[in-house]
């Protein structure tokens, strides 16, 4: 039970310091570790470099850390949903490093696996490759990208056990499993916390070795950015 913390703030106790680098899982607002983000806000830690595919939206997710100006630099692939972000970036308050989404994912995967750098075709001949090593393999050009490793990763999972084994749900998986591998310490918030032995070992997405602390966050509010639906077509057989 040593990994399990009863409060979100306790799960981050002693881990936060000014100027640190934090990875935060999620795609848009799907699968974001929202409770942990709010605990980071409440801690007041500042000058953060945050690695996350997106930057939340105004007032939700990482958007709250922009409001409090705790983030100094974002490493992301797409930040189009956040007006405050645009404002802070254009005024020079916020640094921004764009990565192609696949390059970002692979940099995280590589960092977690102890791979310091790799070559990819993505970005060759674009400003993304400026200043980076470009090499030819088998007649094609590739650009070198570095692995990423953070001081802390915060992830959201659907289910976790007391050993730290995690299971994600549907597209809320996204960046969470790779980020869980790519930091000195990973803290997971889980919607359902069970005793070890209650998750089928064949179904574990993130093995517990990657998760140092875990906290139960039951029934979290989940946000939908683009609620899209289709009309119900009533079959003729249902209308008498």
């Amino acid at each position, binding site marked *: 039970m040593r990994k399990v913390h009863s409060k979100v703030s306790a799960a981050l106790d002693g881990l936060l310091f000014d100027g640190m680098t934090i990875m935060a899982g999620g*795609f*848009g*607002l*799907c*699968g974001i570790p929202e409770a942990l983000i709010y605990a980071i806000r409440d801690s007041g830690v500042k000058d953060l470099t945050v690695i996350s*595919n997106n930057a939340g939206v105004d007032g939700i997710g990482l958007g709250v850390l922009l409001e409090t100006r705790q983030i100094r630099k974002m490493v*992301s*692939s*797409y*930040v*189009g*949903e956040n007006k405050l972000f*645009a404002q802070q*970036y*254009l005024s020079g308050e916020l640094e921004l490093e*764009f990565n*192609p*989404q*696949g*390059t*970002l*994912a*692979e940099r*995280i*995967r590589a960092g977690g696996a102890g791979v310091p750098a790799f070559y*990819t*075709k*993505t*970005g*060759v*001949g*674009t*400003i*993304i490759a400026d200043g980076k090593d470009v090499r030819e393999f088998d007649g094609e050009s590739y650009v070198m990208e570095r692995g990423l490793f953070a001081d802390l990763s915060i992830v959201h999972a*659907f289910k976790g056990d007391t050993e730290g084994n995690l299971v*994600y*749900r*549907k*597209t*809320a*998986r*996204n*960046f*969470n*499993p*790779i980020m869980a591998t790519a930091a000195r310490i990973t803290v997971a918030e889980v919607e359902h916390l069970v005793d070890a032995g209650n998750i089928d070992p064949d179904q574990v997405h993130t093995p517990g070795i990657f998760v140092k602390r875990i906290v139960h966050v039951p029934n979290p509010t*989940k*946000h*939908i*950015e*683009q*609620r*899209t*639906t*289709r*009309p*119900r077509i009533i079959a003729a057989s249902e209308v008498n």
Partner: protein
Amino acid sequence: MAWTRDQMAERAAQELQDGFYVNLGIGIPTLVANYIPTGMSVQLQSENGMLGMGPFPYEGEEDADLINAGKQTITELPTTSYFSGADSFGMIRGGHIDLSILGAMQVARNGDLANWMVPGKMVKGMGGAMDLVAGVKKVVVVMEHEAKGEAKLLEQCTLPLTGQRVTDLVITDLGVFAIERRGDPKMTLIEIAPGVTVDEIKAKTLAAFDIAVQ
């Protein structure tokens, strides 16, 4: 009559083949899903981590944990699988996706494509676009022929590139162009929308092109 957005999507759907794994971008490309021929097996990939993307849910059945890359609520199919961002882009960068259909701000005669940034204005980011054009086997661009009276098919792109020599086919409201990705730059007009003339297309295209209308 130039093609409508739906007609452009319908034309793009002719590039689908049975058994294809396909990634559709935001905007007109999304509409291509409405024109998958009946009986053809096509699996749609969503780069946030899903293969086998289903239609939008019925009202009341939205699931916040089930979205596409445009952050829209969607549904799953019997063929669906979920995976991490690294696996998702492994599929894309590893050349396992057959076809990418996406929008563009500019395409050059040699296949260069720009669709992610306008310098001096707020940049939103490239998302997965650079990975898609670099890794997917065939790249089809669907876009309006002009933007506010300015040509989008050019001799050379003026905007920062998304990828170099990555475009195979361009479908606009006026016609369809095939592009050579290797060797000397070559762009060929292969189809013309009904009622549109070659002269009109020439007037609205700032790039040399051959004509081989079938």
